[in-house]
């Protein structure tokens, strides 16, 4: 029993998990509406869309890279799909596949430039962010795309809503959990996971042991891009809107979620369960501070300050954990 407890406590995601419990308890005590079915439904509506991107970003960051273009892809992919559909060029399903294919190509270009041209991922993906966002604005002349008339099995499959009383849940929550389970398995129980961790931990040693570091990273850039596109399309179907500005600054929020969940910015270390906890920590905080009555225009001050405080607390807990206290 003691060894089981020590095993649980020694996990890197234990610190964020304790923070999550404290956060839920604190907000529940301060606001009776926090755990109401309506509020939990609100919370779970948007969380999977950011959460999916955070899962893919975790793998990329464990490999020692990150992608700043995910937010722009989140906005761009739905624009591609709805433009094709609204202009009667393709059915919705084909438009969906074309949007994902474009995302794969963008991810490949990111990965190729980072691994072959040896340009830091910060610069490559920052440039790609501007290219993709600019293309979305140019394609739409800055106007949102209409999505009201679309009714397809695809939309129901991606974001179909189940309602029990006041509690409602979208299918995207299930896809998020499934995506987390698959990527968690890949990261911790597969050869690909070993490659990812080796590529981020010590790339030279990994290469010497036969790990195809550039190939692994290119695949991860492609995965990150395609999941960002999928998340953006999910969001656009759910809210019936495809806006070229969608996803602005999501890249930073997602990186914050991943880091809060225990993934090292320098690569080599991170877990999917930690990221899920990080996503929940940040989303619950964003929801909770509105519920407890923080003034609307002061929202960002509190979010920024709380992220800093959480990072500091997380760092302190981890140092204690490493020293065995």
């Amino acid at each position, binding site marked *: 029993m003691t060894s089981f407890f020590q095993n649980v406590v020694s996990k890197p995601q234990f610190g964020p998990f304790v923070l999550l419990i404290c956060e839920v308890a604190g907000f529940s005590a301060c606001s009776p509406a926090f755990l109401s079915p309506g509020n939990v*439904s*609100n919370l779970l509506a948007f969380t999977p869309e950011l959460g999916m991107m955070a899962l893919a970003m975790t793998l990329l960051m464990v490999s020692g890279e990150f992608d700043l273009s995910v937010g722009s892809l989140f906005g761009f992919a739905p624009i591609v799909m709805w433009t094709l559909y609204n202009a009667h060029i393709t059915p919705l399903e084909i438009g969906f596949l074309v949007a994902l294919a474009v995302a794969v190509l963008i991810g490949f270009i990111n990965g190729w430039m980072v691994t072959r041209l040896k340009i830091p991922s910060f610069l490559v993906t920052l440039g790609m962010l501007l290219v993709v966002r600019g293309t979305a604005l140019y394609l739409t002349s800055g106007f949102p795309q209409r999505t009201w008339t679309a009714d397809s099995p695809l939309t129901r499959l991606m974001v179909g809503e189940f309602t029990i009383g006041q509690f409602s849940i979208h299918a995207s929550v299930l896809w998020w959990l499934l995506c987390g389970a698959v990527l968690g398995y890949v990261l911790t129980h597969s050869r690909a996971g070993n490659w990812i961790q080796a590529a981020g931990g010590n790339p030279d040693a990994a290469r010497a042991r036969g790990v195809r570091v550039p190939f692994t990273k290119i695949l991860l850039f492609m995965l990150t891009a395609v999941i960002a596109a999928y998340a953006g399309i999910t969001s656009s179907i759910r809210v019936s809107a495809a806006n070229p*500005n969608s*996803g602005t600054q999501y890249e930073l929020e997602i990186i914050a979620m991943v880091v809060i969940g225990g993934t090292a910015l320098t690569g080599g270390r991170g877990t999917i369960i930690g990221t899920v906890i990080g996503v929940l920590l940040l989303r619950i905080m*964003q929801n909770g501070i509105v519920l407890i009555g923080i*003034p609307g225009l002061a929202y960002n001050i509190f979010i920024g300050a709380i992220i800093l405080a959480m990072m500091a607390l997380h760092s302190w807990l981890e140092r204690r954990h490493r020293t065995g206290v």
Partner: protein
Amino acid sequence: METQGVETVFKPLGITYEVTEAKLDQAEIISRMSDYLTANRNRIQAIIGLGDLVTGSIKRVFNQVHIKPGDIPVIGWGNSTDTAQEVLDSYVNAAMWQDPQATSYLALSLAAMAASGIPPGFDITVGTLYEKDKAATYLKIMEGSGDK
């Protein structure tokens, strides 16, 4: 400017209000508005949408937090098809149509007059508040089909 305008009208009347930021992404706008309505449902007597994306999200927010159309009076910017449709569906009581061409063309005409030494000395109204009876007109204009 908009929040200053709200203050000049509401403050003398003793009406309390809060301005809250909603961001640019519709998913995040809906999420924040839903959170705010969940937290403050009993205190909110009316909503002013300071932006097309905000006003155009009212239907989705009300549906998400189970508020019936008309339970909370809403007015706001109305230069989007979403908002015009919401006015028709009674989610929004009235919305502001600001004609884009008139706003730019007439303002430039006024500026040209001033530049050529003719002081305008008058205002030009380039928009109007529309309600349910006129919403179809503006919806058709924004859909590009005109009111014929």
